[in-house]
């Protein structure tokens, strides 16, 4: 295998797959990437067996072939190189020479046939998505997804595609059992004719993170599709596949409280609430960040105390006409929700001091978050 490629082109490709490459050293070859030189360019492929990514990059290939190389070392080398063309030559023993101007690197490669193959996929049945919107849905729900939770399924993001008449709704749900976020949006175009009416899939957090990264790059319309145990995501020549997580997602609809009359909701300025929470949380107890929150007609009062440091309190103006209610929250949980909301205002609604709190943005009806209180 022999090819010439622009340093920036190869670096872009390597940056995209860094997140996919396995960090833990379970199988040495998984810390490598696969380079496939074809007549029309070079494919950069990475997988951790759960997620796979493939992208085709412009290159002048003089001899086709393939090799796997350490993703990290290759990336570190490319980062240090100056702009311009570089030449990659792979010897029979998989040693690879990188020639860039006067710099030369020889790095050890592993045979490409040892690299796990990406799952084969069909091109049919993909639903087009508006790029900005989809990335936004991920951003608004991913924060609530569990992190190494013992309840395995909570470490995934629920994706549902529902086709009703000519509309297709895309909905994402994340929860770690203490908080939950739901965001939905109409997908611009109707899906292919024979698409099933509802698709439900749970994707690993890592796959959602990678999609979000790819969506942040500007051009190209993304497409998404699901097979029995696989999610397929395409965007401008890039392919991302992810195994779906197996298991039953908790019945999240049951725990989202129903909207109440406006008077029973607390409406408050989002930025003010965020600032006050940050300040008061400084003196909350470590770890739980517990802050006592009092809803009273016309105002919200935040209070925290820490036996070792002292206490803090702040009052905010709010629109509320219900009964006075004293509850407590992990300030972190509230701040996470407020951080992904876009509007100026935020509404909070809860039945009793220990019942779930529904948080909404009056300006974006497609988003809802539920946060469970703490006893303070």
């Amino acid at each position: 295998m022999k090819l010439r490629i622009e340093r920036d082109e190869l670096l872009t490709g390597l940056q995209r797959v860094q997140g996919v490459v396995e960090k833990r050293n379970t199988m040495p070859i998984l810390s490598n990437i696969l380079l496939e030189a074809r007549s029309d360019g070079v494919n950069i492929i990475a997988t951790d067996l759960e997620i796979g990514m493939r992208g085709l990059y412009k290159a002048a290939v003089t001899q086709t072939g393939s090799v796997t190389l350490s993703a990290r070392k290759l990336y570190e080398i490319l980062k240090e190189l100056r702009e311009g063309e570089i030449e990659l030559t792979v010897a029979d023993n998989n040693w690879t020479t990188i020639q860039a101007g006067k710099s030369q690197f020889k790095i050890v490669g592993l045979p490409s046939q040892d690299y796990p193959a990406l799952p084969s996929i069909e091109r049919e049945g993909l639903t087009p998505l508006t790029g900005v919107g989809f990335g936004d849905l991920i951003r608004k729900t991913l924060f609530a997804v569990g992190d190494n939770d013992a309840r395995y399924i909570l470490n995934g993001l629920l994706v549902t595609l529902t086709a009703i008449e000519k509309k297709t709704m895309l909905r994402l749900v994340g929860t770690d059992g203490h908080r939950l976020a739901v965001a939905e949006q109409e997908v611009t175009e109707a899906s292919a004719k024979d698409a099933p009416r509802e698709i439900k899939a749970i994707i690993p957090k890592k796959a959602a993170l990678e999609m979000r990264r790819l969506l942040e790059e500007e051009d190209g319309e993304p497409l998404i599709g699901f097979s029995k145990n696989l999610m397929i995501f395409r965007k401008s020549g890039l392919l991302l596949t992810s195994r779906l997580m197996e298991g039953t997602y908790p019945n999240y609809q049951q725990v989202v409280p129903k909207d109440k009359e406006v008077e029973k909701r607390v409406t408050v300025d989002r930025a003010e609430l965020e600032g006050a929470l940050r300040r008061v949380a400084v003196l909350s107890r470590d770890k739980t960040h517990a802050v006592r929150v009092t809803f009273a007609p016309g105002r919200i009062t935040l209070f925290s105390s820490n036996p070792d440091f002292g206490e803090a309190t702040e009052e905010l103006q709010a629109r509320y006409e219900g009964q006075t209610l004293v509850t407590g929250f992990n300030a972190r949980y509230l701040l996470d929700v407020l951080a992904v909301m876009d509007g100026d205002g935020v509404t909070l609604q809860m039945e009793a001091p220990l019942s779930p709190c529904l948080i909404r943005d009056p300006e974006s009806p497609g988003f809802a978050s539920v946060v469970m209180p703490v006893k303070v």
Partner: protein
Amino acid sequence: MDRWPRQIVFADVDAMYATAAIVASPTLAGKLVAVGTPPPRGIITAASYPARRYGVTAAMPTAQAFRLCPDLVLVPPDRPLYQRLHNRMREVTDRFFDATEWTSIDEFYADATDLQSLHPDPAQLGQAVKDAIFEATGLRCTLAIATGKTVAKVAADCHKPDGLAVILPGTEAAFLAPQPVRALPGIGPKTATELDLLGIRRIGDLSEARFEPMLRRRWGTRLSALQALACGLDSDPVVPDRDPKSSGHETTFERDTDDLRFLERTVHGFLSELAHELRAQGLAAGTFTVKLKDAQFKVTTRQRHFHTPLNYDPSMWREIRAALRGLVIPRNLYRLVGLSLSELVPATESLFEQRTTKAVAAMDTVIEKHGARVMRLGEIPEE
């Protein structure tokens, strides 16, 4: 009456565990009650005042207690009951005082400095608190009021049981002087013996010039602080409760055992009590420690973190059981097993287990009211 510069209240429940047993079963009233575990291995945890007259004291082997007092009525410890009574006492103290510092389940300090306009007579305030605690719990306590924590504590200790003492400002040194040095916090039995050899027996002796050189050699620069304390000069503030750090339970068996099932049942029993206490306090534990002591008195422990803080025993049991099984050496004999839960944090409610949470809360209410024996979680048969 002149305003006190500081007014500190100290109260200590008289023989709390033993009295609690009588509160729970009034038929025990007037009997020689002691709380503890049965012989041959058992230890007395607390003795009622009548039993104390026979020489029965806490930490005494139960077998010895029965020899001293053959009519002794032994009652097993009932932690949920003590916790319940403690919570009721707290409600009383919270009603009276802004700042209360509970130093154990049955004694507290409170700052009454700002209450002097409301209660100009400290003796009346003290009696009102004592009465309110008795009314709420059926427990009698000894209460003392002074300008500092040390004097209040020493005064309460020498007015037990059911006492009330007020040490007026300016009389602290005179009150402390005739008390034995051992009464002063920080002076343990070893130091007291040491001082006794020097001829120092009363608190007043600590401030006498003739002992000064000897004391200086023993305490160095710390002597001035000790002497200030001996005169009743003590500005230690009342610090409202610190977070409970951990909660634990252990027991010594009557006979050493190598029966894993039995060890598991014992630890499981501790867990349901401890988890109930956590829920009652709105807390959850991030870490647990299993402890074993074998027949040779060798102690082994195993500590693990839960993936998230928990307070519902069925969710905690699997990991605790695994730790216990990992710790037990087959055919090794054990004399003691213990479980403690730590890293206690306020519990976050669960989204998907709201029905379970409600059901468990209902059970907890029943236990609070009628005791742990009337209701508990069912069990799923072992696989």
